[in-house]
């Protein structure tokens, strides 16, 4: 955004409010809803794990190590994408 443009009202906003700030607020709120979405799942998981600890222990030894590692890498690096989305202008 150029210097001259900065103080002109945009079609949606007003002086001083940039799309960038708005995008960041929106993305954080969205991430917040995602946490809550999966939070429900984690709540169930912890309730059942608390109820049946032996079964969970046994089941975890049946997991495929390679697939599990791959899955973890994908899930943990996924947060880069919203970050890049916010950074993109």
């Amino acid at each position, binding site marked *: 955004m150029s210097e001259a443009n900065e103080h002109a*009202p945009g*079609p*949606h906003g007003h002086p001083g409010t940039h799309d960038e700030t*708005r995008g960041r607020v*929106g993305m954080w709120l*969205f991430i917040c809803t995602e946490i809550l979405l999966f939070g*429900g799942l984690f709540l169930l998981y912890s*309730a059942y794990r608390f109820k049946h600890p032996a079964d969970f222990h046994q089941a975890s030894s049946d997991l495929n190590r390679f697939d599990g590692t791959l899955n973890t890498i994908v899930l943990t690096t996924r947060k880069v994408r919203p970050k890049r989305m916010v950074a993109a202008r």
Partner: protein
Amino acid sequence: MSDTARRDFDDGGPYFSAKARYPGLLGWLSTTNHKRIGILYLCLIGTFFTAAVILGVLMRLALFNPGSSFVSPATYNAMFTLHGIIMVFLVVIPGVPTIFGNFCLPMLIGANDMAFPRLNLFTWYLFIAGALIAFASVFVNGGAPDTGWTFYVPFSLKTTVDVPMATFAVFVLGMSSILTGINIVTTVHQLRAPGMRFFNMPLSVWGLYSTAWVQILATPIIGITMLLIVVERLFGIGVFDPTKGGDPLLYQHLFWIYSHPAVYIMILPAMGVMSDLFPVFSHKNIFGYKMIAFSSLAIASVGSLVWGHHMYVSGQSDTAGIIFSLLTFLVAVPSAIKVFNWISTMYKGSIRIEPPFLFALSFVFLFSIGGLTGLFIGALSLDVQLHDTYFIVGHFHYVIFGGMGYGTMAALHYWFPKITGRMPAKRPAIIGWLISFVGFNLFYFPMLIMGWMGMPRRYADYLPQFTGLQRFSSMGAWIMVAGLVVIFGNLLRSGKKGEKAPANPWGGATLEWTLPSPAPLENWEEPPVVTRGPYDYTGIEEGK
């Protein structure tokens, strides 16, 4: 990039006739303008409301006589389920935030559009997709859902009809609702006009803002719950199925963690609209601005912690029941604050009885009955008697139809000049209001009595001793619907042939009344500078 949206239209003229990039219907379907999206939502939600009302009328017809009727018990189950799903998920939850949140919110805070105009249009398409999936679930895979709108397990896991499709529809509709909430919160934080502080905002904005937070924080929970039902049905995982070690009570917890706050999503924005209407039609500053603003936040936050009052008889622990009961009684306090403040606003005001204000007054009357009967069933011991009876049905309809429904009709009449540029005809509006108001009470009050006597909800038949009250209720329903036909017929007619509206027909002091009627496509060339309060009527005359 910020100029792309502007280039979609030629500037000038009312929002609905401004020339779009694409002609005709395509121009509407590809619009990112907040007012046009509001109207798109209004058309869809109006259609769904009509469909669900017709289902309701047919149910009342089926219940006119005891014994077998023209609908089989299985069809009756499908009818009340559809009535519930359509009304709850397609009409009252999205209703005020999507129609008036879109149409009015930017004008109320002096912005030119929502924070994310394209996302806004996307929510409308998600909404249509969800609705289409819900309607498809009626016709494919074994028939319409018969679980009630609550999809309680284990029945929803066992029934042969297509529950996964209906629950997936709820998931999609939830996504749409979340994105609308994000849009509203961001808009209120980022796009207020210069000089408009938080405690300078119209109270309808406070209502929408609190609601948006509930949409953001509660809706994801129902999203995952509905997906778990789908997964359980398709792959038999056994999260909720007791025969596989699952816990059906967990489902009820997850469901009501969302669905109780959802009741506040329905009612809070309508309360906000009421707080705008009472000062305008009393021509007097609102009584207790800050208390009303804070009570919206209080309802949103405490209301998120009361879900267990739906589960008193489910077998949850007594301690939990006592805590949930206490919190339930606490929510009544901010609701009462609002009602008392509206009444106090009228005190020594210069009251004008116009159609929007009649609906607002009936909101207070009906919502008070709904709220007070809510305290009955919030009490642990009484709920054992009243749980799953007509008392619940009566209470719910008093709150939601009497509150949100009449609130929406008040808002429709109030902002009608901004939407269409014409005034709603006064006489037919008042006649329609009177018929519907009388019918409403004849319809739902007998339900409270029947529930007290033990008539269970969701039954296709009843014992002979209920015949009189059931018929009373059915006839009330038809009178009410006749009133609704007059009201909406009048609005449609006034939209075409009504008297031309001035910019500020009701004498409101909020920003939208400084714009011409109908509203232009672009709200303001220069952002308005706010120097007065939203309820400061010095120097404002009606009809100018």
